[in-house]
């Protein structure tokens, strides 16, 4: 949809979900649906206890990748807005790590676009997680299931 509001941010600080969603729709009354996803840091990976993680990114390139992903979503669905806020740096279990949201006149487009944002972000945006385990820190390996999740949207 022409003129979709694209909001993308990478930051160390936590974010307020209500404030972010408000930003997505502020000043307009034609939005019928906002779908959002919040990712949290888990305290385990399979059987392994996770005491925290550190997120590394590629400053500049990461923001450009997120902007492109949000723009792709707005080209596929009739969106009035697309939002991605992603944290970097050290994070503890239960902390918020990412927020993705889509605004549209109707719910189906909003739901689908929010899922698309996450599936593409996970495989396309340059972030890397390093987990702290009882055996020491380790880099998280990419999952084939994430590639499969992205593939369902087509090229």
């Amino acid at each position, binding site marked *: 949809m022409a003129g979709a509001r694209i909001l993308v941010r990478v930051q160390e600080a936590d974010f307020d979900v209500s404030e972010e969603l408000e930003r997505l729709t502020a000043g307009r009354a034609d939005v019928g649906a906002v779908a959002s996803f919040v*990712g949290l840091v888990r305290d385990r990976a399979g059987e392994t206890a996770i005491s925290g993680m550190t*997120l*590394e*990114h*590629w400053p500049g*390139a990461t923001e*450009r990748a997120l902007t492109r992903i949000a723009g792709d979503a707005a080209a596929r669905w009739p969106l009035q807005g697309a939002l991605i806020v*992603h944290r970097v740096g050290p994070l503890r279990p239960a902390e918020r*790590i*990412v927020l993705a949201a889509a605004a549209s006149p109707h719910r189906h487009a909003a739901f689908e676009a929010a899922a698309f944002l*996450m599936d593409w*972000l*996970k*495989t*396309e*945006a*340059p*972030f*890397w*997680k*390093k987990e702290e385990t009882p055996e020491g820190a380790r*880099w*998280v*390996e*990419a999952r084939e299931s*994430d590639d499969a999740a992205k593939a369902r949207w087509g090229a």
Partner: protein
Amino acid sequence: MRVLYFAWLRERIGAATEEVETEAATVAGLVEELRARDERHAAAFADLAAVRVALDEEMADLDAPLAGVREVAFFPPVTGG
């Protein structure tokens, strides 16, 4: 040419960025030159199946040409979200 490293590639090499003089025609050629530099680079590029590359921020393959490229980035598959 500017070379960037992220995540465990950065750790193994011990630097996030370095300036490289190269005549290599492709990414693969550059990787061979970097591997020959020292043990750190050799360790970082030991398993190329686990390494992704971007040329001026565009994802590329190992056989991609380097002509006109200003910045090469090496990193593992991404794990954000």
